């Protein structure tokens, strides 16, 4: 299944934040989204999830298969979010409840969305913790978020995102808060999950190194518009847009 965003416009309080974004995600592919602070990367992800701030107006089309997410009734959209479309944020605290055990957070989603019984949900949760390579998955099931390191918490947030077998994963700066040594592991994990599960991934990152490591396609945003889209090698090595070139040139000491 693919996700196609066409001519997406978002207005908040009379201000046009997205001015006609076109993006296309394919299964088994990581689509990287770069661009400076405030260019609209996060808003694009939130629009797909139906999580735009109050008072925001969105027009255009966000097609998931046959359905347009922008016109889906709230109940239907709720099923899509956390089901077919899942998300991971910069700060794992955004996705994790501090007072609930890891197991509880994983199974709650599954019981709600997949209607699994307690035992099935538990088995699947432990399997997912193993998949994101949390050591001692059985024992980790009963622990709380604060008992894990930052990198492990982000892995748990990814496990929760994967709980209901999404087709599309929106990851907004998922490794920015992590140590580079830990980031390397999480990037390998994301790439592996994308390949193995055939996920369509939208990876928002300001880090062109991260982009280069795992994105197949790269889009660059500026002022609410996608100014360049293309295969990773093309965009990062022979950018056609002056703005992309300026992003690459601003990297310390890289000789192009």
């Amino acid at each position: 299944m693919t996700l196609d965003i066409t001519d997406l416009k978002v207005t908040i309080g009379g201000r046009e934040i997205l001015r006609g974004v076109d993006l296309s995600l394919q299964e088994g592919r990581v689509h990287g989204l770069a661009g400076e602070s405030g260019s609209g990367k996060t808003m694009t992800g939130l629009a797909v999830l139906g999580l735009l701030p109050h008072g925001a107006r969105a027009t255009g089309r966000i097609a998931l298969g046959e359905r347009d997410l922008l016109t889906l009734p709230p109940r239907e959209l709720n099923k899509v979010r956390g089901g077919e479309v899942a998300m991971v944020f910069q700060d794992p605290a955004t996705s994790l409840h501090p007072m609930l055990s890891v197991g509880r957070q994983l199974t709650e989603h599954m019981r709600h969305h997949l209607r699994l019984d307690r035992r099935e949900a538990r088995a699947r949760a432990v399997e997912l913790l193993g998949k994101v390579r949390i050591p001692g998955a059985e024992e980790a099931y009963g622990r709380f978020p604060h008992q894990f390191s930052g990198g492990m918490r982000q892995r748990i947030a990814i496990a929760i995102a994967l709980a209901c077998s999404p087709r599309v994963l929106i990851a907004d700066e998922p490794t920015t808060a992590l140590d580079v040594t830990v980031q390397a592991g999480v990037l390998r994990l994301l790439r592996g999950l994308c390949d193995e599960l055939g996920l369509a991934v939208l990876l928002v990152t300001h880090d062109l190194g991260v982009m280069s490591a795992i994105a197949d396609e790269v889009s660059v945003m500026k002022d609410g518009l996608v100014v360049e889209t293309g295969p990773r090698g093309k965009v990062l090595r022979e950018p056609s847009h002056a703005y992309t070139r300026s992003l690459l040139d601003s990297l310390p000491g890289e000789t192009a």
Partner: protein
Amino acid sequence: MTLEIKDLVVEHRSPGRPVVRAVAGASLTVRPGEVVGLVGESGCGKSTLARAVCGLNPVTEGSITFEGAPVTPLGLRRRTLTGVQMVFQDPYASLNPRRRVGDQIADGLRTARDGETDPADLLERVGLPREFAGRHPHEFSGGQRQRIAIARALAARPRMLIGDEPISALDASAQAQVATLMRDLAVDSGAGLLFISHDLSVVRLIADRIAVMYLGRIVEIGDTAEVWDNPRHPYTQALLRAIPQPDGMGVLPEELPGDVPDPAAPPEGCRFHPRCPFAMDVCRVKEPEPGPVACWLHEPA
């Protein structure tokens, strides 16, 4: 105006728990007008070291001197007197939510006995509009708040500025801007800057020298370009290999397996040996001498 840290040991003691030797013999110098970047994985002791420099954590062994005088834990008063100012990770926690930012910057000016400068001048220096002085912290974005925290720190005319992960809570795309701003402001005023971050590419952008910390010790220190182009300690090499390159080639960075060990029970010998691909017999029993590179592969001839 030099900050000198010599053989520093800082321990955390809490009842009923083993002593945590968070800084375990670290030496480091920051000269006026110089930017030193301190990097290392979370939990290696960076914050503990920074807080000790500000007199917020007592020194267990070794010494910290600033402008020749020892830094002692006399709390806030002493800290302002010694001319060391710290900028923390979370600007929201360090600003008073109930007071206008102009008034908070004015506190810093009073510390420096500066009756001339207008708080709005400082806002301008950190790239914010003058009229922000009349607003409260909650009216700003994370990046703007951190600029305000920097303005307030600068108002006290510090001769040494310490940033403890000052950019990690910011929106990713604002991080390099704020880091560069801190560098420029510190260097322009002739103050030294000790910049702590887990983001090596930002440190590379702003630091004159890089110090790499592992489990309470500085394992390598040198000029930024030298460390970056020719890392000598296996841990520094692993850190740099983990950074993905923006070359468009689709190469996944290398993982460094394992976590930073518990500082309450550090490994025998070289602290890095359980994760080191080059570990030799001597590494398991004898700790390498401190130096520009603390590793048995690089013993001074």
